């Protein structure tokens, strides 16, 4: 069941578009904002509000890389693996984080603290290598400072 606030936020989004189904991505983001990810039941609930089939909503949900259809950790580390960050040495950052947390790209730590994902270019190329944790951007990463950043997230 969607919560009252989830429903309310979705209905507000619908107002911005001439057709309810245009708010599909926004609706998925609302649910993800509240729950961290989008479960099957929520896909059905969103479909009902927007007058779509659950499969249509899932087709949209699975297309977009920032909609999670599986549970993620409390914090999501998005490490840029695109070209400028590669040239500036993202690889050593990846191995360092991976070893420290004991997870590879696509995995979540056993305590549910972190999920580590690769991300396409963050548009922060003049400060490469770059990553984002819960929408907070980090610049000019190096293996000396990265532990300190990660420790900030409980």
């Amino acid at each position, binding site marked *: 069941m969607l919560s009252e606030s989830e429903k309310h936020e979705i209905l507000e989004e619908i107002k911005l578009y001439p057709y309810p189904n245009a*708010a599909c991505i926004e609706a998925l*983001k609302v649910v993800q904002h509240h729950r961290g990810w989008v479960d099957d039941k929520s896909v059905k609930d969103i479909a009902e509000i927007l007058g779509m089939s659950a499969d249509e909503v899932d087709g949209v949900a699975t297309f977009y890389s920032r909609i999670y259809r599986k549970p993620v950790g409390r914090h999501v580390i998005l490490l840029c693996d695109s070209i400028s960050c590669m040239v500036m040495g993202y690889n050593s950052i990846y191995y360092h984080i991976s070893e420290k947390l004991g997870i590879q790209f696509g995995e979540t730590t056993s305590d549910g603290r972190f999920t580590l994902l690769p991300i*396409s270019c963050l548009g922060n*190329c003049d400060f490469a290598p770059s990553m984002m944790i819960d929408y907070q951007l980090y610049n000019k990463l190096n293996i000396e400072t990265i532990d300190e950043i990660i420790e900030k997230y409980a």
Partner: protein
Amino acid sequence: MDKPLTKHIKPGAPPLNIKEFLKVGGYAATTKALKTMSPPEIIDLVKASDLMGRGGAGFPTGTKWGLVPKGGESPGQRYLICNADEMEPGTFKDRYLLEGNPHQLIEGMIIAAFAIQAETAYIFLRWAYKEAESILRKAITEAYAAGYLGKNIMGSGFNLDMYVHSSAGRYICGEETALINSLEGKRAIPRAKPPYPATIGLFGKPTVVNNVETLAWTSHLIENGATWFKSLSKTAEGGTKIYGVSGRVKNPGLWELPMGTSMREIIEEHAGGMQDGYKLRGVLPGGASTDFLIDTHIDAIMDFSSIAALGSRLGTGNLIILDDRTCPVAFIHNLEKFFALESCGWCTPCREGLPWVEKILWAIEEGRGKPEYLDTLKFHTGYLGPGNTFCAHAPGAMEPLQSGLKYFREDFIKHINEKHCPWRS
């Protein structure tokens, strides 16, 4: 030197709020355009300036606006969309404009919307640009409160509502018809063209999609005119351009410079030259989907026609540097991995071809390559090239590959012969 787009941007400081923006002459162009000019006059002015779209393709902006059916031909809703889904790897100029001067963009959009008689405008914003999102939302609220958005703007009878749509990822959203599908809440799959968005776009209505840097020009054109715009440039293509450099240079960053500034000046003067111990081997002049240029092209003039004459594209004008301590095969593999991942999956050549190219490149990089692999890569650049796919995604992906095979052929052969990447210990 005139820097109209960035003169009010102070890196590290918050952007001008509406009061400060008004103090430096902001929204004067809106009043002038809405009260003293007709929509066709504005379109003629933009046409006369020859402003070329700054999103990468360089399509003439005035022509794009002129294609929208007007008045009696097409009663009802029209839409303006600002494409702020900046996701071309190595490109970061729009973020700078969005975060640095949101009212400049809003003003540009008001005038553009008036010119095409659109009463609704969307800013399609990259999900990762969270700071830009809150800055834009605040600025839009200010503009409504001051009467520059909403009903009967400045008593002109023109109405405009403006919304920010924050995206949910995927590079293909930058393709204008895919962007329109995404804004309609659908999978971001490009549409068949024709019809072009100018006639059938968002929700089936006439729609113009312009890049952030393009729309930022509108108010300056209204205030200063087409001749002034052309005088800013070093070449026949007018205006300034926000150039950027990333990679192993001393001072990576962005600079607003006259259109047609040389690559040498951008890299050596503004970016401070290569870092000590690194040599320049190649440059992608305008993002990941542009052909390589090499060290002998260092004096290239960075405008659309000059870079095209060298077999590449100006694209976004944000340069990515390949240095001598980075393996060109690994570099190109990284690009193709990105394009394979970001294929929308709609047409077969792109969906199947790009992962195949990526796998072959990885095999070569890991020392498992065979001489015939180079031919396989070569024919893919044709099969995935222009005309063989539904949109420009795969052809764009083939640009750095085809030029990479030409300029770095010896490096590919060395990988295959030595069964090892020479850059790995």
